[in-house]
């Protein structure tokens, strides 16, 4: 796209659900149901996506050209399922958002806003 914005920074911050969807697609194409499950697992059930809203968001993200329907699909899958994958722009947006969040966390640590380092 020629009129792509020079910097993706002005698209940030992302809505939490959008961030979760982009993250779920970061390690490869997924279909809708798989996105829902991945997000639910990753957030320990904190963020739950429901189909009607999810597909609405997916359509909006497609319109933004952050994601696209993917032709790559696992061999064992139902052919009717629609897979979505990040576009290069989507990857850049996700990258920029994660960096932004990282900067916030770093700043918080440096200013000792956190009582103790979080370890997992």
């Amino acid at each position, binding site marked *: 796209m020629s009129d792509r914005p020079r910097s993706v920074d002005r698209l940030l911050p992302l809505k939490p659900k959008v961030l979760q969807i982009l993250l779920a697609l970061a390690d490869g194409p997924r279909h*809708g*149901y798989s996105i*829902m499950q991945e997000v639910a697992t990753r957030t320990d059930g904190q963020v*739950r996506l*429901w*189909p*009607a*809203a*999810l*597909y*609405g968001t997916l*359509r909006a993200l497609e319109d933004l050209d952050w994601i696209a329907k993917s032709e790559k699909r696992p061999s064992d899958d139902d052919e*009717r*399922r*629609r897979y979505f994958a990040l576009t290069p722009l989507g990857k850049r947006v996700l990258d920029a958002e994660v960096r932004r969040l990282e900067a916030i966390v770093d700043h918080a640590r440096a200013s000792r806003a956190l009582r103790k380092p979080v370890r997992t």
Partner: protein
Amino acid sequence: MTPPSRRAIRAYGWLLWLLRGRDPQEQRAIKEDAELLLDAARVRGRRAFAATWLALMWDLVIVGTGHDLARALRSLVRAPGFALTVSLLLGLGVAATTTLFALVNAVILKPLPYANPEQLVMVWESNAPLKRLREGPAPGNLNDWVANSDAFEALTGWWTASATLRGRDGSAPVTGVQVTTGFFEVFRRAPFLGRTFTADEYLGRPSIASGRTGGQEPVLVLSHRLWQSLGANPALVGGTVYVEGRKWRVLGVMPADFAVPDIDAAFWTPWDMREAYRGVRFPDGPPRDFRFLRVVGRVKRGLSREAATDRMQVLAARLAADHPRTNADWSIQLVPLREELVRSSRTDLLLVFGAVSGLLLLVCANVASLAIVRGAARAREMAIRLALGAGRMRIVREHLAESALCAVLTALVAIVLTTWLLGAAIAFAPSDIPRLHEVDVNIRVVSFAMAAALLATIIGVVLPGRRGSSTAIVPALKDGAPVSGEHASRVRRALVVAEIGVTVVLLVGAGLLTRSFARLQRVDPGFDAQNLLVLRIAPDVTRYRGAQVSDYYGRVLNSIRELPGVASAAAVTVLPMSTIGSDFYRPYWLEGARPDEFAATQANVRMATPGYFATLGLPLVSGREFSARDALMAPRVIIVNESLARSAWKGQDPVGRTLILDYQNGPSSLQVVGVVGDARYKGPRSDPAPEIFIPHAQNPYLVMNVVVRTTIDPAALAQTARVQALNVDRDQPVHSVTTMERLLDDTLQQDRFAMLFVALFAAAGLLIAATGVYALLAFTVAQRRREIAVRMAIGASTSSVARLIVMESLTLALVGCLVGALGVAAVSRVARSVLFGIAPHDPLTLGMTAAVLIGVVLAASWLPAQRAARIDPVSAMRI
């Protein structure tokens, strides 16, 4: 899969289809994912399944409607014309309906402001053979009922008395209510401040008017209104007020909506009827044949009104056996208190409510017509969108979302207008509508406004626009296609016919009420109501007694007679048309009557000063008026009216004969010295009743109505006459100064209310119907432009084209009149009870209505016809 979960999935599918119908592929994906989620949830149990299903449905609703509403809102902001016009029109109609609903709600529907109000009944004594069907119970009977009845939790009686309240800024007349034991237990209403009476406090207290105290400190409970006018000081509770020449201890204040018997009640005070009726005058204690009390009982919980009536009937039979002279043939009636209160206003209010609902229907029809035109204008847009692949369901959804916005706007407009209109309506409404002080905009009224707004929007916007989605694509896209389909025109024509029909009903109603009102105004009350000034004097009972009362009134009347412009003046206990004054309904019989005839006939007993009949203009049929020689020690004389003379002496002249009247000191023989004409005492609708007049000097009653015949406008004399009366004794309150014409007018308040409102609505309806006809014809002319042009091109004259349009309007008017006639026939049964001296199918009214309506419809078709006649065939066909 179990059936319930299959049903759950199917429901989800329907909602999905309804709300997200854009893309079938996406729809399928959503549905599959939802099913997967539900499958996963089912494993975790029934509750998890239900929770997931609910979450899925919610997700759909939020996403689906949110989108369409947002779109509708955007299009509203972009082109607000239609939605705003519709909302304003409908809002106005809904507001008018809601205003009347608020009245109906407060007066008829709302429960009375007492605990368990359904247990409350009004108690009447009734005697079928004497045709006295609703008499206030007698004190003696009430005492027996209280002592012996097992039908009531509590039973109380009261009687109002006018009293003089002396404050810092002079005296004012107030209405005191003297109540018997159990009054506050019957109504079960906690005081706003302080307390009500204990059981002991009811005992041994005489009436207000007696001027005695029964050896105790007088106590009272104030109304909220009087308490506020006294400064609303909480410290007043426990303090004293100065009433009827002595101090009374204030025990408490009742809440603002406690209005027993009506909003004029200023205070309540205990009353022991045993104390009030004793001594030589009442050797047997409280009388059984003075039937005047107002009695309300709280029926025992679980006992039906019928069962309570049965128990009371047994008691009544026992009393009739024990006291045959006073109680034979008397039975007891229990009427639910609420019914009792709204009896008089119910029909009028419902009538006006019906009229205003008719108006709302008219507005809906007009808006529907607008919506059809708009739908027709947008048919092309719809066709283009459909042709480009928009789902029909999507168009339906957008339409619904737009309508929902209209409904919300309508409700808002209506609620705002209602609060404003309600103030005006209360100011206009007759003051004798009960419970008017309880009218407010509450949750019920708001809900009504919202429901009415929704219904109006459905009728006015949703239904007419419903066809937008079924537009046939190809014809609509054709160049030069008619702007509106044949179907839409037919529906609009039907709507205009319906509008005319409703208007006919409203017009006929207004015409009938107006003519009936005119007849009521022409009814001869029996006397000359013009140039009469009326004032009421309630002297202090502690100040004037016996002959002093006659002397006081003599001086007052003389001082008024001295005024220029006064022809004569007199006083009487109860004036015709006046609601104030004590009326006594007493048995009388002729000399030589058998004992079983003693109580058979009753008459209203009134005390009058000499010159009363001449002053009032009540004709003397035979004999003489009272004069100064009918003094306290002179022979006892009476004057009777024609009704009594007719029924007692059957056409013979009663002058010089005697009659036995059972009044005050027991039956006594009185000589008839005159007969006067009949008067309609309770307004033009009432029939004359038998009356007996006693010279005031022979029974010096304290509270009197003074009536003054003037030679000039009586209202101009009001102030000077009052001052003149006050000059005799400035401590005696002179109040309710008014004219007889106004009193006469007040008896017609409810008739006027109904007439004015229905006439107003009829006028509005006529206007709406006229605009409806105009809009339809104007549209038809625009639509048929080419056809008319062709007609003209091949030789039709301008007048024949105009005639074409006018004939169409005439057809509409005639069909509408027929529809209206059916409506009139349907409501005539209700109308009959309200009308006076005129039948619901009065041919003159019907004829005039039809004439007015056809005239207006023809006028409305004038402009469109002109426009049609002016069409230039050349330019019209060039398109």
